[in-house]
């Protein structure tokens, strides 16, 4: 067991963990952050996507030891302190990009990271941005439309809401 300290959704936290424990398990079981979803446990579906120092990663493949000293953002950390949904979350809701919703948190985290890097993406870039995230319900069309809508809003507004 090792002691790790990291920033979780803006708050400093610590935990004693087996170094290889998947970050997904730590976040869900120890911190109660069940918005991060276990879809496959082998890095193939993207449902467990979180941001690690701003980069989208599959938390099921990420050893907890590697969280030490880093900044972690999960779906629960996207809302503003008063509970206003992040523009990407709002775009997913309004575009009809959510059906069963199990892939949704991962899709949204991937999109937040993507739009920080590409504020004016092309349609092809949008389609490719979520190629590592599987969805069985929507056929991806409305997810792509949501990403476009969020890109337009964030691009025009200049700054993101939430954290």
């Amino acid at each position, binding site marked *: 067991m090792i002691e790790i300290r990291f920033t979780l959704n803006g708050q400093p936290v610590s935990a004693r963990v087996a170094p290889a424990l998947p970050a997904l398990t730590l976040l869900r079981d120890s911190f109660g952050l069940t918005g991060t979803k276990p879809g496959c446990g082998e890095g193939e*579906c993207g449902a467990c996507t979180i941001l690690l120092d701003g980069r989208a990663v599959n938390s099921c493949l990420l050893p907890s030891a590697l969280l030490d000293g880093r900044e972690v953002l999960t779906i629960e950390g996207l809302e503003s302190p008063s509970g206003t949904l992040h523009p990407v979350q709002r775009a997913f809701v309004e575009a009809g990009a*959510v059906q069963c919703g199990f892939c949704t948190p991962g899709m949204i985290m991937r999109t937040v990271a993507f739009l920080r890097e590409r504020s004016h993406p092309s349609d092809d870039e949008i389609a490719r941005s979520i190629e590592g995230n599987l969805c069985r319900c929507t056929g991806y069309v409305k997810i792509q439309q949501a990403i476009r809508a969020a890109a337009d809003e964030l691009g025009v507004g200049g700054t993101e809401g939430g954290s």
Partner: protein
Amino acid sequence: MRIAKQSLIGKSFPKLDAPERASGRAVYIQDMVLPRMLHGAILRTDRVHARIVAIDTSAAERLPGVQAVITANDIDNVPFGHGKDNTPLKGDKVRCIRDEITAVAAETESIAREAAALIRVEYDDLPPILSVEQALRGGAPLIHEHKQTNVAFTYEYSHGDLAAGERESDVVVQETYRLPYVTHCCLGTSGIIAAFDARGHLTLYSVTQVPALYRRDMAQICGVPPERIRVIQATIGGGFGSKLDIYPYEPIAVHLARRTNRPVKIVFNRQEEFVASPTRQPTEIRIRAGAKRDGTFTFREIDFTHDNGGYTSWGATTPFVMMQAFSSLYRVPHVSMHGKVVHTNNPYAGAMRGYGNLQATFAVESSVELLAGELGTDPLELRLRNAQEPGETTGQGIGLRACGLRECLETAAKRSGWHQKRNQTATDRPRVRRGIGMASMLHVGGGAKIYRSDGCGTILRLDDFARLTLITGSSEIGQGSETVLAQIAAEELGLRFDQIQVLNNDTDVKPWDVGVHASRTTFIAGNSVRLAAREARKKLLSAAADQLRSAPEELDLRAGKVVRDADGEVLADLGKVIRSLHFGGKNEVVVTHHYYEPPSVMQDQGYKGDVSAAYAFATQVAEVEVDLDTGVVKVLRLTAAHDIGRVINRLGAEGQVQGGVVMGLGYALSEELQVERGRIVNPSFREYKLITSPEVPEIDIAFVETIDPEGPYGAKGIAEAPAICTAPAVANAVRHATGGRFTALPLTPERVFSELKQ
């Protein structure tokens, strides 16, 4: 203040539950934890056909943290499933790779899995049956000895006179098609929590899509009286038919909970989901079809087999749906169908979106394409010639009241530029060809009366602040039913969405419903809500009229207010009117209910009868590019014209079409559960290839809004329809591009390349 009259029907509304899901708040079975909860794990066999000689659980029992280990000998192992040929745990023999031998309950999931891995099973292998042909051979070993045959079910259907159809035919085509194993791939894997309370009552936290039937069946399997069982559905991470059947892990959780007197949770990992959740039936279909010189269809003769696998689930009844496509997709006077559902030692199949119709429609629409080729006719013209008109009844007794097949064909052809593109297969690259192909489908759109009732109950309750609790028997599995039902209530009662709470996941609260299947919820539950709401409306308007010294017909309900119907002038707050009913000495509350039963009938012995209150139609056109050197098929554009009656929620309906089409594209191009010697060799998303975002073509959707006379506001069901005819449309496009036959799916580069090489 005035409020204008505004209908909500046909407009776009985001799902009411979407913020919960997009914020990570929604609680799926994976996320649920109960005090003192144990975790269950199941040891499944690694043999496909064997006698169980001995089971040694001693090492597992000694592992610290293990609270119970059970085998078939420890429980009342009640047979269940559609064929009553499966049991929760297997005691004497195993019949397929997923068979459950023992189960463990432990303090953590990892201890439970570790313990399961310590259990040793000794087998006596039996000769495996790995194909339908082998199972049907004389002298083949029996998979279920007491059945005395490997044929689980036989289906014979006919209408007209096949011999007469043959005589009338100028051309006859014949082909055999092979459709693969595919599986649901719900992003949320299967799971359950079973918990007994101090009175011995059982609560099941479940992902079932048929809670009322589930409760009845679980009662029987688990030996708990049904009146002591409550089913609470967690947020469901995708269904698509996979949650129609009960699977052994569910009674196993109950047995472990009983044994330990603690709540027990079992959740599949992804590999288990691939291995131990259902599949679509792999099917082989031989179809002969005839037509007159002028293109009029004369007959269809179909012989098919389903690989049923080791046990019989609801999936064995998919021939009921297949025969609708065989008998009634286009006008065909003479039809004969013979089908066998055959046991093998392969994984057993279940129910999956489309329920046999994907396989049947692939065969029918492929044979239509062959007939068009023989006749030298444009495939669109041939289909139009044989398309039914509203008011017709098909040979199976299916009454086509609102029928938009012709309009679907014409709309899809027009929007895709059919005629122009049909004449051109060349591209500017010599080794790349283009093709365009189409296929249509017919599916139930007004429920399916396979039980004595195909109904759904609704209870509406308006409280003293005009908050509506809409209690429906139906379930939300991600498809958007909750929002559609709220929309219908809002339409009738003039409420805002923020005044409505839908309760749909607790059998202690909700009235009976058959369940989520047969694309029935909008139609059946929608009508149920509409009629319950009309009653509530009458009561509210009458109370308001009393209070306002007006007449009910002069009033209307809009945005939570009572208004003058003529000009929308606000006259009273709806809450105040409701309060007047109990404060004002009338001693009344506003609670109404309705049980809607569709005017459909059960089929007779010959499978004839108008089993659904409405039928949905669609035509899809696929445009593809085929690289002759690599065999890669790229779908460029897909046009989907769907007759779903009146659209209720446009956003939701579009989402159903897009999701269905992409599931259909997977069936057409990439998905196949590879089963070798009874074993699934690709149980992961790395090797089972779902369509991903960059591969999705432009999908052009057109709704052909026939107004169904029975449906709510004229609506019919949609859910399954969009997945049904995508694969034959793609295959017909690839055939058009290349001239190949393509008798098997999926059209992987390997398959396309090797066929073109011949």
